[in-house]
């Protein structure tokens, strides 16, 4: 198997719109939640969200959108994009610059792109309403590519002239972790030399509020404690959006280009609960098997893991099931790994989560820290036996595990190895 490295990252997130700012927020445990203006209505029980700053994408016409001056998007490109398409484009630009890739590096048969997003319920709803009201022939010609799931890969692959493998992944909150895993395989198997991994979500009313009906969202009104994974009083997740792009490269490419390395993607594993369409298995069996598979794939014992970036979204049931999976894997380890959920800071980015948190792990490994698990006042007693770190540790982890779980009981575990 060929070795795979992360050589570039790009972020548009609720805790920062570039790697430097994100890293600072992670270290200082600065969260991105606010009382989200569109939620401040009597009939909306949820008040807090973690929006993207410095972008305005709240109208249905892309030409009205505002984004930081360093990015320029022509109308021709914008008209086929959802809000998260713009986030992904900006993150992609950062990642390309960060990895110092030339146009030729991006556009060749050995370079591919895997992406994940839930599409844009916001635009989809608007376009369908327009169709119902004004007739099918008045649909926006690019309404479909702007709004359906896949919009991110459509746009980025065509715009960045990607010639290698490309597709989208759709396993809800595990989607971009799946994208990362399969992208890693493409390189390990020698099919591709370089892969872009993209996770993105609109993170607006239409993509977040439908989860209220499931009672999955926190109804906290204090933004500073709304997302508190592993806390006894956690009451649901806080929605967010944005985009993260990772550049994965083979060892040969890293050598050829003299690329800067964040860390090695050592391997991954996945497994399914086979249990419930929306509720994770109470014992976390799928996640446990996914982690076991990842350890097997990387030939590592559980005690080799130094840090776990948990999936924990701050829902009562979901966190508990992950806690149980982690205890089963690491419970008897004399050197227990540090565990934290960065969703306490970012909120839950759904399809974006896996790639975003892999990006956080890459930053932590390059810069030498482990971000703390924020907002815990009373640790859930179920966590006894786990080393949940409540402050950032200034050490570089050697081996990092990042978990993701999605609807239908899909679970993905990715393992990173320090390469510095």
């Amino acid at each position: 198997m060929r070795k795979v490295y992360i050589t570039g990252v790009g972020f548009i997130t609720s805790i920062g719109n570039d790697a430097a700012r994100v890293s600072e927020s992670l270290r200082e445990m600065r969260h991105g939640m606010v009382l989200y203006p569109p939620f401040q209505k009597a009939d909306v029980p949820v008040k807090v969200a973690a929006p993207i700053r410095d972008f305005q994408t709240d109208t249905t016409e892309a030409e009205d959108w505002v984004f930081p001056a360093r990015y320029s998007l022509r109308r021709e490109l914008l008209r086929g994009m959802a809000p998260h398409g713009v986030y992904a484009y900006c993150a992609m630009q950062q990642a390309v610059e960060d990895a110092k890739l030339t146009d030729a590096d991006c556009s060749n048969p050995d370079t591919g792109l895997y992406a994940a997003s839930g599409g844009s319920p916001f635009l989809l709803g608007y376009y369908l309403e327009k169709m119902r009201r004004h007739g099918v022939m008045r649909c926006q010609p690019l309404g479909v590519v702007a709004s359906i799931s896949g919009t991110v890969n459509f746009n980025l692959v065509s715009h960045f002239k990607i010639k290698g493998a490309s597709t989208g992944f759709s396993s809800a909150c595990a989607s971009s972790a799946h994208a990362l895993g399969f992208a890693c395989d493409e390189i390990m198997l020698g099919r591709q030399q370089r892969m872009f991994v993209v996770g993105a979500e609109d993170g607006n009313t239409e993509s977040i509020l439908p989860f209220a009906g499931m009672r999955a969202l926190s109804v906290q009104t204090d933004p500073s404690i709304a997302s508190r994974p592993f806390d006894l009083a956690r009451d649901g997740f806080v929605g967010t959006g944005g985009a993260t792009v990772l550049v994965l490269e083979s060892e040969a490419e890293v050598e050829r280009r003299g690329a800067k390395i964040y860390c090695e993607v050592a391997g991954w594993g996945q497994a399914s609960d086979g249990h419930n369409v929306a509720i994770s298995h109470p014992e976390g069996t799928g996640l446990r098997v996914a982690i076991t598979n990842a350890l097997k794939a990387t030939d590592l014992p559980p005690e080799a893991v130094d840090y776990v970036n948990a999936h924990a979204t701050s829902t009562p049931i979901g966190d508990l099931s992950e806690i149980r999976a982690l205890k089963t894997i690491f419970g008897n380890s004399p050197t227990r790994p540090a565990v934290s959920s960065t969703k306490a800071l970012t909120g839950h980015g759904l399809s974006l989560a896996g790639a975003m948190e892999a990006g956080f792990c890459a930053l932590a490994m390059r810069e030498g820290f482990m971000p703390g698990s924020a907002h815990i006042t009373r640790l859930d007693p179920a966590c006894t036996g786990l080393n949940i770190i409540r402050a950032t540790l200034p050490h570089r982890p050697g081996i990092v595990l990042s978990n993701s779980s999605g609807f239908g009981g899909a679970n993905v575990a990715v393992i990173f190895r320090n390469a510095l």
Partner: protein
Amino acid sequence: MAQAANSPSGFQLKPFTPEEDANLREALKRCSAATYESAAQFRKTGNTEHLPAIVLGVIERYVEPDLRAKLKDADDDLRIIEDLGIDSLTMMEIVILVEDVLQMTINNEELRHLRTVGDVKTFLDCKVRGLPLPQPTKFLPIEQIASIMPIQAPFLFLGEASVNAHGANAKYKISGQEFFLQGHFKGNPVLPASIMLEALGQLAVLFLLEGQVGEAGKSVDPKMIFFTSCEGVRCHRVCRPGDVLSLSIKPKRLKLPLATFEGQIRVGQEKAAIAEEITLTFAYAEEIVPPVVAVAPTVAVSAPAEQQAVVNA
């Protein structure tokens, strides 16, 4: 025909309510104020004189800012795709906005042939008035030109050509093999000015034969077209072997037995020659005969140039 033109049947004014006005303003919010004004006037009065301003205003809104200057002093020959960088998807957006503003429906088949700003204007004008739609621009490869024209090699100076209701365009590449270049001039081949004028005259002949001239059922007799006069002919550039001449003519007056055209020749962006007036005499064929070219109209209308060439081969 004349009667039909005088009693437009397709366009009926709907009351232009304040709500409609608000929708119109919203729809045209990214267009110039003049576009909205023209559209509002059109919706109130049905006066088709407002159409060109509306169409240009809508197209301008979709043209990238750096190309908008082209539209400012555009003539009707400005090509939507080639000159304005508008792709077929943007064309759809333009159509949807035009449909919205003019309250009409345009189907895909009708759209396919609209290549120039002039095509769009004429199309909408006919559509709004309920007139039969004009024949779209025809693109004629050399083989087809040769089969239509009374003039033949080695004295035919048209390569590929396009003809629509408003005029005709053609290209001619000076090969260097033209027989007269041996003596014009000695050791210094230059296309004679008289040949430039001849080429424009030939394009005018092609227009008379292919450009839907005359009344229904009558066709221009290819044996009865002759040169009568020209005025204001000026040459601006010496043309030599290797140059590709872009010829264009437009009818100024068409009244049996005279047809007067204006013409110009460019090489790339450089003006090579202009003729303010070229006048030909013509006559209709005695009997109603099917056109000499045996191309079924549906093929000529809908097939792209390459397919036509195959059909004709």
